[in-house]
């Protein structure tokens, strides 16, 4: 960490501060999205920003995700640095042509002669009882598209630093926040007041360890840390928890270095396991780290179904601490 000052922020506060500071420093940065003005965003991330920056820069839109992204992209090519908010990550599907065929490809299709500096902030993940169309973890879909970068912070400190880097980046960045982290006091951490960047493409060891490597994303990093702590206390198992932070670019080295030490890898993500992003991690590790592995790589992930509504089913669909623990124990045999 850059600086260990005492100021504790929530994830949401850290995100808001990143945007405020960038907007104060750079007039080209603006926000566009649904209910982001008076309402302050469905999750409250932009509360107060209308008052400070006015409606010219906090641009409240009708419910038109495709246009939001198209407009953001068009303004980015012509000199602005938009931050577009898509209320739930499920709705990036409505804008998928503009994301995957336009924003992602413009730089390449034009031979590098245009750039598209824009951030798409969106709330992913389940656990809120919002069911199949408001709870998805769609990061695998965007991570596959060349031209995009994909960021998923797991804590307030990372949220601020990664959002600042994303705004500064000259490429379209899909920045996926987790709903269960926003206001969660359990996961506050100390966040420097000044602007700082966390480079895209650098993972982070959230907890060192020597017995097994856990690679996780977003909220699952927190769940993995809990599982690691329990296993340490209860069984003396020493897990290393690797937070990849950015899915694309992927810091494969931090993962390889970890398994060099541990010889074992478990990958944890919230999305349905089939075709999820961790397949990429497994494939790269299989190719590049085969000799260091002394057990099959295991995935702990969402079940292969839409996110169900009922609490009992939802908890079964999304991996929790117990499922992660069990995965680790199974792997350690």
């Amino acid at each position, binding site marked *: 960490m850059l600086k260990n000052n005492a100021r504790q922020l929530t994830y949401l506060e850290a995100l808001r501060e990143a945007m405020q500071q960038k907007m104060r420093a750079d007039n080209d940065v603006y926000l566009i999205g*649904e*209910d982001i*003005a*008076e*309402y302050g965003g*469905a999750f409250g991330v932009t509360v107060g920003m209308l008052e400070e920056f006015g409606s010219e820069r906090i641009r*409240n*839109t*009708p*419910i*038109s*995700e*495709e*246009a939001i992204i198209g407009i953001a992209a068009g303004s980015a090519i012509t000199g602005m640095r938009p931050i577009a908010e898509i209320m739930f990550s*499920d*709705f990036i599907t*409505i804008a998928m042509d503009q994301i995957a065929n336009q924003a992602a490809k413009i730089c390449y299709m034009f031979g590098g002669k245009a750039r598209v500096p824009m951030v798409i902030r969106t709330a992913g993940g389940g656990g*809120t*009882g*919002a*069911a*199949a*169309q*408001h709870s998805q973890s769609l990061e695998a879909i965007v991570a596959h598209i060349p031209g995009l970068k994909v960021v998923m912070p797991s804590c307030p400190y990372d949220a601020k630093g990664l959002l600042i880097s994303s705004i500064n980046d000259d490429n379209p960045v899909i920045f996926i926040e987790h709903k269960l982290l926003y206001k969660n006091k359990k996961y506050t951490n100390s966040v420097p007041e000044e602007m700082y960047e966390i480079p895209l493409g650098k993972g982070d060891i959230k907890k060192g360890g020597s017995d097994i490597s856990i690679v996780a994303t977003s909220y699952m990093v927190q769940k993995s840390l809990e599982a690691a702590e329990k296993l340490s206390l209860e069984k003396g198992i020493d897990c290393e928890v690797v937070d990849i932070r950015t899915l694309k670019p992927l810091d494969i080295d931090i993962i390889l270095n970890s398994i060099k030490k541990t010889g074992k890898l478990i990958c944890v993500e919230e999305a349905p396991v089939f075709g999820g992003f961790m397949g990429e991690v497994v494939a790269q590790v299989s190719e590049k780290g085969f000799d260091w592995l002394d057990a099959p790589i295991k995935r702990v992930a969402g*079940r*292969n*179904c*839409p996110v*169900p*509504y*009922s*609490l*009992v*089913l*939802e*908890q*079964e*669909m999304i991996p929790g601490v117990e499922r992660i623990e069990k995965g680790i124990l199974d792997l350690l045999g």
Partner: protein
Amino acid sequence: MSKKLYKDVNGYKIEDRFTGLSNDLKIEMLRKMYEIRHFENEAEQFIIRGMIHGTCHLYTGEEATAVGAICAIQSDDYITSTHRGHGHCIAKGADLNIMMAELLGKKTGYSKGKGGSMHIADVRSGNLGANGVVGGSIGIATGGALTCKMKKNGKIVVCFFGDGAANQGIFHSSINIASIWDLPVVYLCENNVYGMSTSVKEAFNIKRISDRKYAYGIEGLTIDGNDLIEVFNTISYFAGRCRTGKGPVLVESLTYRWSGHSKSDAQVYRTREEIKEWKERDPIKRYREILISRKIITEKDDSDLEKEVMNKIQKASEFARESPFPDPSEVEDDVYA
């Protein structure tokens, strides 16, 4: 049916089909409105008591639109609904017990607890489902109408959606196709003044959403969505038109959402006065007073009816609370047919 004129508006000679209805039917519509009102009150209680995992979008204040429109069509016609779907579902004839059970995530619910409030559907009664995606059901409704046309089954579809949904792309591409293919759909835009926090004034640069009919060469009208009789007569008229193969229509129903958008809405974007004004135009009160003044019911009948409904809702609530949760092992069932 009476052939008396209800209204000649913009050249549409809308008949008064309401007056000729049986008293039973007229009272049934009041009952349905009460059912919706009290169902939503009960749902709100569940939310307050933390018994609903997730959110609910309440239909309170908009009852006349769902009930008027759905009572104007045949019971085997189709509807598509929205995230604010309890009202449509009740009006279309769903069982209150099974609905309430779904809200509580119970195995006995319409979707065995898998869908919840935002995906409440009773396909057997012709309700093709609520939809968590704003605008998401407009294409589905259009496809339902294509089935009606291809199978020549004489059915039509009423597609409910909000003012907010009218700015989604699928509104445009679907209605255009319905128009060129003469599909039997009543696109019924529930303009309740807001899409979440965004007012229609902010989201549109036109006065009447129904004017979008000019973009597709179809018919349409804006009506008072808090006047059950107006809704009933207008939708009867346009549904009849659809049924004769004359293509889709776009009706805008002016109404108001009494509650916040969902459970976490501080409602900073509107004033208490505005809410109060609209509450004075309570669709249930208006309709009840008409029935009383026309001597179709007495004050006493009315309060008995309301009590009866409240009882029924209490029963539904009990049923729901006492029902079992689904078993975790069922989580991967029903992904595929």
